């Protein structure tokens, strides 16, 4: 078997290998550890550097975070936007993927190329016209305004189209013989067969919405509408030296992603390896 032959290092090399990996992992993990330590060290910041083992740990920073700002609302905002974006993207991406895989029509290649090209257009290029467009529609400072530009994802369509292409055509042909139309083939045959890809897309859609910054910053200006990254950036302006509070906010923002990641590591890694899109 090929896999058994992958570099079987000698003992010396194996030790070096482990040292490199573990040392590297420590360096990579330390900033997170430091974030947690800082968040439970009251008064960390202006003059105080936390110690590795806090002498007087306290959750005070977390309490202040929720008492002094609408932080719970901020979390709920992020959560709601991420969930809606995910559900809508699953719908728009899977229907488009079905069309590009199963519904031949003239000019389909060109349309698909245009879809993919939109992946190359950075949001930043669109900021001014998008802002004006949503202002015209009266959608500034609304959740809908924050959501609309995220409804279709070229990445999601690309990912799901690959998956739909893998579903054996014999299955839909058999269903067609049984009298099923495209809507039934789509819901009863294709969707159940691309569940792993749907999971990958869900994780990515949720993650990119949860972490997105520029567009929510531009469109949601009222404090009570803000999402987590925007609120965190503002937190730093408000408490320039109260790093325990800023780090507590960071911990709160990372935890759901951490949970999601542990839960769905396979799909995240697969998504990156297959597409290279964050």
């Amino acid at each position, binding site marked *: 078997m090929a896999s058994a032959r992958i570099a079987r290092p000698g003992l010396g090399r194996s030790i070096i290998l482990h040292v490199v990996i573990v040392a590297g992992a420590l360096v990579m993990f330390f900033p997170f550890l430091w974030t947690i330590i800082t968040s439970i060290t009251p008064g960390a910041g202006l003059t105080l550097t936390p110690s590795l083992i806090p002498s007087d740990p306290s959750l005070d920073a977390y309490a202040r975070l929720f008492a002094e700002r609408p932080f719970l609302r901020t979390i709920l905002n992020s959560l709601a936007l991420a969930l809606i974006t995910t559900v809508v993207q699953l719908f728009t991406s899977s229907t488009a993927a079905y069309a590009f895989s199963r519904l031949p029509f003239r000019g389909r290649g060109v349309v698909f190329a245009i879809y993919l090209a939109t992946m190359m257009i950075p949001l*930043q290029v669109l900021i001014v016209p998008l802002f004006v467009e949503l202002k015209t529609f009266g959608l500034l400072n609304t959740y809908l305004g924050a959501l609309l530009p995220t409804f279709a994802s070229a990445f999601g369509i690309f990912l799901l189209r690959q998956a739909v292409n893998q579903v054996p055509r014999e299955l839909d042909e058999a269903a067609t013989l049984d009298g099923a139309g495209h809507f039934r083939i789509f819901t009863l045959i294709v969707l159940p067969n691309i569940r792993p890809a749907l999971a990958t897309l869900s994780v990515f859609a949720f993650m990119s919405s949860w972490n997105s910054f520029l567009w929510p910053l531009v469109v949601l200006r009222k404090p009570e509408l803000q999402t987590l990254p925007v609120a965190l950036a503002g937190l730093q302006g408000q408490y320039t030296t109260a790093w325990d509070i800023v780090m507590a906010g960071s911990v709160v923002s990372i935890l759901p992603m951490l949970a999601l990641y542990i839960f769905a590591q396979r799909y995240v890694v697969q998504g990156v390896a297959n597409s290279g899109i964050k």
Partner: protein
Amino acid sequence: MSANTVSAILVDSKDAPRRPVRRGRGRYALVVLAFLLPSALPLLLFTLGPMVAAAWVSLTEWNLIRPPVFVGFDNYAKLLTDPGTGQIFLHTLFYIVGYVPIVYIGGLAIALALNSRLKGRAFWRGIYFLPVVSSWIVVALIWRWLLNPSTGVVNTVLAAIGIDGPGWWTDPLWAMPSIILASAWKDLGFVMVILLAGLQAINPDLEDAARVDGAGWWRRLFNVTLPLLSPSTFFVLVISLINGFQVFDQVYAMTGGGPAGSSQVVVKEIYDLTFRYGAAGEASALSWMLFIVVLAVTVVQIIGQRRWVTYG
């Protein structure tokens, strides 16, 4: 094999089963529309439409309040003659030149290490990947704190071993290196996963053959592994450069483009022009300039790949 599959095979022709659905051309067109519209509408309204609109806005002078005034290519001329434009492109380039080699070499080293027989590989991979799932804002905040000149842990440790640490993001000279450091930490795991997937697709027989021929570790790396990994490397470079030109979040949260504009980058300038200086026309012109630069760099990479990328 189910009865349905058998019947599908018996039918034998690929097109025959589709016919019942295509009862009428009009009806089929409606089906296609129904499947495409949910994605086509948002893409048209919120990506392609604004893209065209940005081209038009770039030809106007507009503060987003009074009606826009058509000025032709004035905004482009202004940007091209303003030495400040060169500066912000240089800063962006500085970011890319610092960031890309670090994430590539670091990511490759970790991927090579993880591509061997190792207990708990998924766990270690997970540790390296953690920063990737964090938001840029959180990453920027964490590093702003780590690199705090007076109470940050990095300078505290440096002081303990007798080194007087720099002012990091408060020092014009060190602001961009600070941003590069934070960004490299975040993206290392991302690059590692792509390269690891590439490494795992390489046939181990080829490396074994080189080993039998007496090639040492470095020679195998440069003459066998890296050439076979070139498609993944190419992919990493294309994505890194596209992302590099669009650097914004971490600059916004770490330095705000400062001190004294020393870390001001293109997208931050687009943002400032629009929302601080009310120069939407100029911002759109700069957006299009950025888009054209990114497109050109990507096309050059795609053309240049023939010289060094080998597809097995």
